[in-house]
Each structure stands twice: as structure tokens, then as C-alpha cells.
């Protein structure tokens, strides 16, 4: 089967291009077919298969199969499949096509054996995701897409500069584990981290993703941040600076989500929170931690996809996205409420869900390494996840006060996609061994011990109690919370406007000054040389003869004197 040695992501990219032009009846075959072909391709590739070529004196590996790459490519293809089913009848063709190109380039990144290939598909992802946001076709979405694109092109520029420097320093562009020990590698790390939503530029996730269509946000939640986690695992394992960065992201996500009113922005902040766990794991860098980061990414894509599908279903059925407008929907959307709650339990790492069997590997690794601060922070954060996503999202959307809205459950294909992910959330929670088996390192971790179960139940149930005790303080308000994007959306804009206003005035002053002088010059020229000017008016012939006679007379007098 060596002809299947085409990078598996290419199938998704090609189907994306077809989806953008094909009519409705080709949609379903493409949505179902391409991810399945990609999955077959991923799993038929022999381990360590490599496709090598020469370019500008550098060895490139457009296809290089690794265990981690296979793991991420698998879940990306699953996401394309399930997200595609969810989007089948509700997405427009631009969105669906762009989403598949986006998914395909994410899969291609996981098979990139060199930094140039990685960069190429990295940028293709940026374009695909921008189009997914754009395709929502609202003014807010178009603006958010612009900001998103500018930020990601900036990140791409950091990455490319870093890659060029790295190639100069080492003479190789192969993608191998690195240390952040030179300017070039710091730039590469910064480029990777921008896509992970690391500080200070975390705001783009909550700014851009919730502006996409109900199905668009589902795709967006999966690929960009998780390819960033993948390249961090492959490129910078054990880089200690990732631990504080990851912990910051975890708490940033919790605090901002607690303050947020828009249901999909709550979930977007919680993406930063979850990716923070993975980044911390990469920073810890032991086999257990890296396994934890990869497994958590796998589980996260599924339950976050499920959560955003349930939020998307609510948005699609009600046209509303603010918690202040929602509530009580469980009465008419029981399936959506149930499936969304399963996603919420999984993100909170409730026992018997996928979060329990994956995320806990990261805090276990922190304990094993005796990283006390990190461990205490991770435990507090696990409680915080239940608080800001696990209860807050289902509570304010499906329960709390009765909003009086009685929309029915969404169309069947949307429910089907949600069921598929809900089954995976619980399946991976009860039976994690298949996932453990495809991780990069041998797994020496037992999730289901009495101690772990009791600890997790105590932690989660008491944070649940805290939620209801603090409920009066959590009342939703019609507000947003300022973030770093204030600098480029407000301060920088205001500065530019002030600059433009002042330069405008100065230019007017200079112009009027110049014009005043010009008119004075013209006036004086006119006075002497104008039609009535002394130097330009016509002279009578008689006066000329008189003056000639005077001159002649004087010269005659002079002659005699």
C-alpha cells in the first residue's frame, strides 16, 4: 500500500476544495469519505515512515510518521468527521470547505518532519480558520476574522524568522526536540505559543471563535490550539518556562470565564484553561507528563467539540448566545441538555468520563516531580474547571431561571454528532486502555484507585457546593471583560485616530500658511505686472515721443555744457 504514502491530511484538504464548489448531494459522501480515507491512511502508514526530499540544500521531510503525530492526526480526523456531520445541513459551503482544508492542514502539521513543511501547513491553517470565521457572514465576524488573521500572520512571521535563524545556526530544518537556548529558537517557541493562546496574546480565542457560525466554532475549537500543543510536545518537551505559562493560562481561563456572559465565550476561555493544563504538562516534560498532555488533548478535542455543539445547537435553535437571555432550556431541549452536561462532566474530569482518565496524568506527573506549587495550582484549577465550565455552562444555559424559551431539540444530524462524541467521552472514561495504548510512552498510570476516586469526588462535589453557595455573586451581567486585546482594539486605535486628527490639523495649518504666502506673492505680482499693474499697462505713443524728445534735449544740453 505504498501509494497511500501521500500525507493523509492531503485527502482532507482536497475534499475541502471540492466541498467549496460541490452541490448539496455531494456533501455527505465527501464529509464521511475524506476523514475515513485519512484515518485509513494514518493507520496504514508504517511507523517511522519518512518521505524525504532535497530543497535549497536542505533535507525536507514532508511526511514523517510518529506516535504522537498519529494520535493527534487521528483525533483531528475524528473531529472533521463528527464536526462535518454536525455541520452537514446548516453550514454554508465556504465554511464547510474551509473547515476541511483547515482540518487537513492540521493533520499535515502532525506529519511534518521538517520546519518548512510545518510552516507551510501552519499558515494554511491560519487561512482556513480565518475563512471559517468569515463565513458566518456578519459584520462582527468579518472584523473578528481580520483581527484573527493579522494576529496569526504576526505569529507566522515570528515562526518563520525563528526557522530561518535556526537553519542558519544549525544548517538543518528538521523538526526535532529543541532547547529554547537561542534567539531563533525562542522565536519558534513564541510562534508556537501564540497559537496555543499563551499570554499576553490569549484574547484572540475568545474574540474570534465565538463570532463564527454555530458549526464553525466547533471546528475552530479543535485544531489551532491543539496543533500548538502537538508541536510543543515534539519541539520543546521539558522546557521549564512552559510550566508558569501553562499555569497562567489555566487561571486566566477560569477567571475570565467566570466573568463572561456569552455562552460560547465561556467555552472559548475554557479552551485556554484546558490548553494551559497541556502546556504545563509539556513543561514538566516527564514521560507521564507528555503522555498526559497528549491524552488530555485527545480527550479535550472530543468533549470541547461536544460542549460547543450543544452551545451551537442552542444558538441555532434560539438565535441567542447570552446567558442573560437563556435558561430553562432543558424542558424543551432535553437531549441537548443531557449531551451538553456529559461534555461538561468530561471537561471537569468527573470519574467515568474521559477527563478523569487523561488530565489526572498531568497532576500525577507534577506530584512525582515534587513540583509543589504546580501541584497545588493544578488541584485548585481542577476544582475551578468544574466551577467555570462544568457547572456554569449547563446551569446558565439549560437550567437557572426560566427564560420562557421553548425551542425543540436541533435536527437529527446535529444530535447524532453530539451522541457520537458523548459516547466517546464516556467510553474513554470507562475504558481508557485503547487510548493509553497509542500514546508515545508506555503508560504506568492507574486512574481508578480508591484514593483517586475519593479525592476527585471530594474536590468536584465541594466545588459544586461552592458554586451554589456563591450563586448570588455569579449573577450574569451584560458586560464583557477587558483583556490584552484592549491594547490593539482600543488604545492603538485611539492613538491612531488622535495621530490622524492632529496630523490632519497640522497639514491644514501648513497648507493655509503656504496658501496665504502664495496669494500674497500673486497679489504683488498682480500689482506690478497685472493688467492694471504699473509695469504692464500700455503706454500712449505721444508720451514715448515726449520722453524721447526729453532725452534727446538733455543729451543736446550736455553736449553744449
Amino acid at each position, binding site marked *: 500500500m505504498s501509494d497511500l504514502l501521500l500525507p493523509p491530511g492531503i485527502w482532507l484538504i482536497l475534499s475541502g476544495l471540492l466541498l467549496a464548489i460541490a452541490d448539496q448531494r455531494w456533501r455527505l459522501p465527501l464529509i464521511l469519505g475524506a476523514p475515513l480515507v485519512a484515518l485509513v491512511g494514518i493507520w496504514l502508514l508504517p511507523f517511522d515512515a519518512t518521505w524525504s526530499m532535497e530543497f535549497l540544500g536542505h533535507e525536507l521531510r514532508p511526511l514523517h510518521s510518529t506516535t504522537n503525530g498519529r494520535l493527534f492526526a487521528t483525533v483531528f480526523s475524528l473531529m472533521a468527521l463528527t464536526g462535518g456531520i454536525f455541520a452537514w445541513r446548516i453550514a454554508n459551503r465556504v465554511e464547510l470547505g474551509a473547515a476541511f482544508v483547515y482540518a487537513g492542514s492540521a493533520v499535515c502539521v502532525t506529519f511534518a518532519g521538517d520546519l518548512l513543511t510545518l510552516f507551510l501547513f501552519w499558515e494554511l491553517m491560519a487561512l482556513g480558520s480565518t475563512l471559517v470565521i468569515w463565513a458566518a457572514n456578519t459584520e462582527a465576524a468579518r472584523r473578528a476574522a481580520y483581527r484573527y488573521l493579522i494576529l496569526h500572520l504576526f505569529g507566522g512571521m515570528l515562526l518563520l524568522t525563528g526557522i530561518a535563524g535556526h537553519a542558519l545556526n544549525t544548517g538543518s530544518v528538521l523538526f526535532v526536540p529543541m532547547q529554547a537556548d537561542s534567539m531563533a529558537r525562542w522565536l519558534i517557541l513564541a510562534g508556537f505559543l501564540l497559537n496555543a493562546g499563551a499570554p499576553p496574546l490569549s484574547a484572540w480565542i475568545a474574540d474570534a471563535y465565538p463570532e463564527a457560525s454555530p458549526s464553525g466554532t466547533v471546528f475552530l475549537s479543535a485544531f489551532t490550539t491543539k496543533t500548538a500543543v502537538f508541536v510543543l510536545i515534539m519541539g520543546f518537551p521539558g522546557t521549564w518556562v512552559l510550566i508558569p505559562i501553562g499555569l497562567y493560562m489555566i487561571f486566566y481561563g477560569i477567571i475570565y470565564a467566570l466573568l463572561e456572559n456569552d455562552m460560547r465565550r465561556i467555552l472559548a476561555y475554557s479552551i485556554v484553561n484546558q490548553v494551559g493544563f497541556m502546556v504545563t504538562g509539556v513543561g514538566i516534560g516527564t514521560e507521564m507528563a507528555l503522555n498526559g498532555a497528549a491524552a488530555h488533548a485527545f480527550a479535550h478535542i472530543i468533549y470541547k467539540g461536544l460542549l460547543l455543539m450543544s452551545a451551537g445547537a442552542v444558538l441555532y435553535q434560539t438565535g441567542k448566545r447570552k446567558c442573560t437571555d437563556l435558561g430553562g432550556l432543558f424542558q424543551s431541549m432535553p437531549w441537548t441538555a443531557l449531551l451538553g452536561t456529559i461534555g461538561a462532566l468530561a471537561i471537569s474530569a468527573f470519574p467515568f468520563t474521559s477527563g478523569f482518565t487523561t488530565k489526572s496524568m498531568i497532576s500525577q506527573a507534577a506530584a512525582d516531580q*515534587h513540583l509543589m506549587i504546580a501541584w497545588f495550582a493544578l488541584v485548585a484549577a481542577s476544582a475551578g474547571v468544574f466551577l467555570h465550565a462544568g457547572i456554569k455552562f449547563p446551569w446558565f444555559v439549560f437550567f437557572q431561571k426560566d427564560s420562557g424559551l421553548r425551542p425543540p431539540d436541533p435536527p437529527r444530524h446535529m444530535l447524532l454528532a453530539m451522541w457520537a462524541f458523548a459516547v466517546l467521552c464516556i467510553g474513554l472514561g470507562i475504558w481508557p486502555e485503547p487510548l493509553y495504548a497509542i500514546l508515545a510512552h508506555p503508560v504506568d498510570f492507574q486512574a481508578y484507585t480508591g*484514593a483517586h476516586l475519593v479525592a476527585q469526588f471530594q*474536590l468536584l462535589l465541594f466545588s459544586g457546593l461552592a458554586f451554589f453557595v456563591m450563586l448570588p*455573586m455569579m449573577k450574569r451581567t451584560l458586560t464583557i471583560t477587558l483583556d490584552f486585546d484592549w491594547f490593539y482594539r482600543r488604545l492603538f486605535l485611539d492613538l491612531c485616530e488622535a495621530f490622524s486628527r492632529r496630523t490632519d490639523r497640522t497639514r491644514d495649518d501648513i497648507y493655509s500658511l503656504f496658501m496665504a504666502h502664495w496669494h500674497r506673492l500673486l497679489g504683488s505680482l498682480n500689482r506690478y505686472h497685472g493688467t492694471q499693474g504699473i509695469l504692464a499697462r500700455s503706454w500712449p505713443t505721444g508720451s514715448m515721443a515726449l520722453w524721447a524728445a526729453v532725452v534727446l534735449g538733455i543729451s543736446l544740453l550736455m553736449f553744449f555744457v
Partner: protein
Amino acid sequence: MRDAEKHWLVRESTIRYLWLALILVLALTLVTGLFIHQHQHFGWEDIFGFYAWYGFLTCIGMVVFAKVLGIFLKRRDDYYRKPGDSDE
């Protein structure tokens, strides 16, 4: 709406039972914790109900911190909208 007309899950009586059930389950996790010993890494984990009070207190802390931060950073949700902009 009268209580009896509401969905059974949101009636006052059900909510009272739900609270009762929650408190029972919370007590149960604490009691079970007495019999199962946590593996000690930092010397804290085996204190009575460590995960319970640690989770509870940190959650309260996070909500309060968010509230305080909100005083400084919260703005109306049309903050970034310019005059003359169309709908969302």
C-alpha cells in the same frame, strides 16, 4: 407560575430534595475519605477532607478574585462597538 405547574425538576419540593441529596453525598465522600488513605506527596493530602475543603476554599477564592477583577475590567458589552455600526 404556580409551583405545581412547573416542570417537576424545578419545583420547590424537588429542589429541597436535591439539596438534601447533595449534602448526603458530600458527607458520604468525607466519611469514605476516612477509610481510604491518600498517597502522600507533600504531607497535606491525608489531612481530613483535604480535597473537600481545599476545593471549596479555592473555588470561593477564585469567584471573589474574579469579582474584584471585574470591578476594574468589566465594561458594557457594546464597549468595542462604534457609533454607526450595524448589528452583531
